[in-house]
């Protein structure tokens, strides 16, 4: 989509939907309520990294605009039509179009992926009809199905893919979760055992109308943009001045394979650093519409003894592809700072993913304490066991299948700390996560990116001031396996019922080079966002 068209649509939307009372965006169509709501946000991010790094800009890094529109219509009390659309654009590609650093570092080349989201499934977010005859809830169309109890990462919530290309800063739910074409049917039996307070059966079918999977942060500035991870490779020597045909950049670790005279000559050449850049991936994936891309999921939801319990099952394709090195050697290019950019040659596919799992949540009332404000903590548990998940063995370069167990434990606890906030509570939410891979080999790092046991913890703290207008929050994600951290500090302010402001900062660190959040060590940034909402 062209810039001019985007601007035209955005302008028309803002002109048409002038700010006004809540009901100015509610109409009657056929005597039934039809509402239009939405928001427009303008965000920006500035690097907090002082030195000039090859994978970041020293000043402004992004200027993200989101225009979100949603419509709801209820022609009957048991029929609901809902649709939403989003326009996303990062104006930094225009603002830095002629910026030398932006071009030299390769960020300008990622324009094709990150400038404007113009795929139909990015523009059209949700479009579904929901029918709720007695005991049933049937929803068909492009929709989101949310499972699980965890926040900040996904465990059992595997129905919809995620768009993570824009990074870790203040991203709205609507801009990260990708709605897909699904048929969801829920049945709530009228008669159930007396010991069950409520019961529902849910079945989800993904007919693979359009093949859409996770949109991850990609390697290489030319593809991944400002969030491309920084992963160093081996040192090289540029032996092309020797004039030997076929002898160019050679990894220093491979110099021993050269004839001794060449080895001696090579010793005088300086080392050249290298980085991992964008990968050339031969990706095998099901075609849109093919039966091999269809997915099936089911859930039993029940409330027993004031606890919410679900049993879940999923059969389909993983939202992430698994890859291994292809036979062809990596492609090499040279960066503006002289470093070698290694472009791995990979072959990949989306493996089948099948699991059974469960979730549980209830408040632990015996733990409520009057001096803490009298609120009991809410316990949340989530787990699944996956059969024959596919991993990449980085030692043998083979795809291997192993079972895995993942679980998470979380707590939400609201406490009163009058010294810090005499009026409102603090919500403290820690979580612990483990992924255990069964039948792991004897090598400690057999699988790419994963150990036999992988651990993560998160902590979220939030409160509010000024009558819920000012909301500070702190989020910490600790990758315990790779000894790496992600921190997010944020302050939100509701200036009015339509204007909202956010300012925050994200920082990353890690002790294991190239592992976990260490690859984002140059991505520390300050971000802000202004939102205007209506409806």
């Amino acid at each position, binding site marked *: 989509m062209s810039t001019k068209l985007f601007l035209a649509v955005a302008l028309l939307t803002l002109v048409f939907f002038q700010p006004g009372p809540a*009901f100015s965006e509610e109409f009657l169509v056929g005597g039934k309520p039809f509402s239009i709501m939405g928001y427009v946000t303008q965000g920006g991010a500035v690097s907090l990294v002082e030195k000039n790094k090859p994978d970041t800009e020293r000043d402004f890094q992004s200027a993200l605009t989101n225009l979100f529109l*949603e419509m*709801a219509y209820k022609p009957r009390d048991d029929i609901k039509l809902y649709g939403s659309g989003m326009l996303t654009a990062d104006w930094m590609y225009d603002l830095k179009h002629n910026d030398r650093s932006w071009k030299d570092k390769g960020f300008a080349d990622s324009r094709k992926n990150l400038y404007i989201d113009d795929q139909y499934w990015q523009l059209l977010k949700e479009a579904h009809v929901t029918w709720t005859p007695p005991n049933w809830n049937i929803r*068909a169309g492009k929709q*989101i199905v949310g499972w699980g109890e965890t926040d900040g990462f996904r465990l059992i919530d595997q129905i919809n893919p995620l768009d993570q290309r824009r990074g870790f800063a203040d991203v709205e739910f609507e801009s990260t979760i990708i709605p897909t074409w699904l048929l969801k049917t829920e049945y709530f039996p009228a008669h159930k055992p*007396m010991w069950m307070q409520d019961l529902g059966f849910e079945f989800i079918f993904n007919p693979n109308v359009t093949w859409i999977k996770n949109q991850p942060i990609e390697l290489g500035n030319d593809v991944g943009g400002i969030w491309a991870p920084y992963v160093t490779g081996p040192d090289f020597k540029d032996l092309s001045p020797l004039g030997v045909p076929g002898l160019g950049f050679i990894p220093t670790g491979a110099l021993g394979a050269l004839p001794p005279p060449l080895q001696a000559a090579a010793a005088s050449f300086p080392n050249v650093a290298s980085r991992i850049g964008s990968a050339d991936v031969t990706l095998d994936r099901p075609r849109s519409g093919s039966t091999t891309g269809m997915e099936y999921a089911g859930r039993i939801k029940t409330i027993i003894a004031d606890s919410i319990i679900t049993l879940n099952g999923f059969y389909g394709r993983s939202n992430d592809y698994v890859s291994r090195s292809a036979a062809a050697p990596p492609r090499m290019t040279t960066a503006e700072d002289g470093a070698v950019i290694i472009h791995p040659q990979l072959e990949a596919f989306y493996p089948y993913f099948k699991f059974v799992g469960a979730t549980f949540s209830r*408040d632990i*009332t015996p733990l409520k304490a009057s001096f803490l404000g*009298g609120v009991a903590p809410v316990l949340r548990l989530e787990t699944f066991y996956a059969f024959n998940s596919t991993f990449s063995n980085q030692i043998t370069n083979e795809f291997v299948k192993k079972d895995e167990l993942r679980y998470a434990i979380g707590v939400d606890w609201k406490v009163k700390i009058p010294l810090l906030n005499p009026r409102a509570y603090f919500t403290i939410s820690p979580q612990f996560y483990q992924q255990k891979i069964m039948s792991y080999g004897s090598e400690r790092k057999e699988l790419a990116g994963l150990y036999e046991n992988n651990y993560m913890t998160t902590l979220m703290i939030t409160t509010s001031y000024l009558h819920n207008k000012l909301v500070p929050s702190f989020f910490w994600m600790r990758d315990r396996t790779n000894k790496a951290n992600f921190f997010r500090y944020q302050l939100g302010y509701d200036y009015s019922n339509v204007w909202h402001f956010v300012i925050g900062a994200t920082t990353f660190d890690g002790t294991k080079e190239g592992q976990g959040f260490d690859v984002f060590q140059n991505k520390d940034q300050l971000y802000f966002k202004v939102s205007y909402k*209506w409806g």
Partner: protein
Amino acid sequence: MTISEIKEKTMNRIRESKGTVFLTFIMAMVLVSPLWAGEPYKKIDAVTLQKYKGWLDDPRPLTKELPYSKILPAEVYAKLTWDIPTMKKAWADVVGFAAPDAVGKIAPEIKPGKYSYKDMETKAGLKELVIPYFRDHFFKPAGPPLIGNFSEMTLIPTRQLYFQLPVSQATKKNAGKTKLDDKGYIIDRSYEAGIPFPKPSGKFKAQQVVYNWVKRYWEAESSDSVGQFKGFNRHLKMDFDGLIEIKTLNLAGRCVIPPFGYLDERARQRKEASAVLLTYLAPRDQYGTALNVLTYEAADAFDLNTLYINSLRRLRKLSATDSQDALGGQDIIMDDNNGFGKLCSTRNPYKLEILAEREYLVPFTTDGSLYFSSKGMELKNVELERRPMYVIKMTQLDKNYVYSYRIAYFDQETFILYHIENYDQKGRLYRTNTSFTTFVPEMGMTTQRTVISRDHVDLHSSLALPFITPIVHLKRSDVGLEGLVGKGK
């Protein structure tokens, strides 16, 4: 063409057409389903309500413009209306008096008519009749920092108020059955239906009055409501604009709409009291959020609060003990919703005492013409009525609770709570809630038309404009998990 080629071509056609088939299925659902799915009757939604009465600068008499006889189908309206003289007599028999006979003792010279706030300076009797909080904070010129002041009012004649005929009958039938323990708390299963203590007396008189409110029958045993909520900062600028749909279903003590007693065996066995489903339609970031609250009769039983979070498309268990934090954007906490939370000896217990039994001027809107003016957010067309009142002080015994005490004003004839003041642990006036109600004579029903909530510490105020429609077809599934998921985004 070989068979395998035909097969391959056919399969390709099927694959290509999947998208079309899917979309066709969706369209079919939209078109076909209304043919055989029935809709009970027309509901009042926010847009329709706005046509009859806007929230600002609109003096139209809502009660006359949109009476229940116009909204409810004839057969339903017939089920919810009774002979007025019969209801009056029945209720007067139950409580032992009629309000018009119980007032006029204080300042008899203050007659029905129009008054301004200035009259309190010249008419001592008027000043004495006005609730102290109203004297200091309501009956005065409009202006910051709080909304809802009124400089003029009409004093209307005192009416006899009553309940639906079946409520009188149930109250009479079950008189004396409800028992309190030695601390003044209802003994489990001793209450059946009706107002438990129609003639409060004795050592636990205050408790009896309060329980009459807790077991109230105002509005309806099952209802479908729409409510506008608006918040204002100290400069009277609107900072919150919300819209909620509420479905409520009484699960116990039913005597108006069958089944009577408990709704079903599940409610009886589990001692369920009521179920409420709130669906947020505005503001935009709360659209599609739904909250289900299931309350239990047992004093020490925690409510079951389940939230459907729109942004996550997930169900979330909320702690029922989270009742003291302000609800987003508003000037009430969860415990303020029904006046004061649950009466319980083990959790945030109160000491109750009657401060006064006397008449006060209480706010009403008989024809629904009450409205907010854009000039200073002043309330116009305010009507006050002499009512015999109980003034009860509820002293909180837990020093860590958000409030140290509450002052509550209950009607002696109907036990309806019209106004409550909440004081923090430093003894400062913190939050207040005041209801302006309409009485529907043929239905024996009092319903809220305007509620003003004020935060005197943060200097923030909010208004609620609910419109409650009593309905007879509401089922448990409408206010349970099925309803929660169905109403969610």
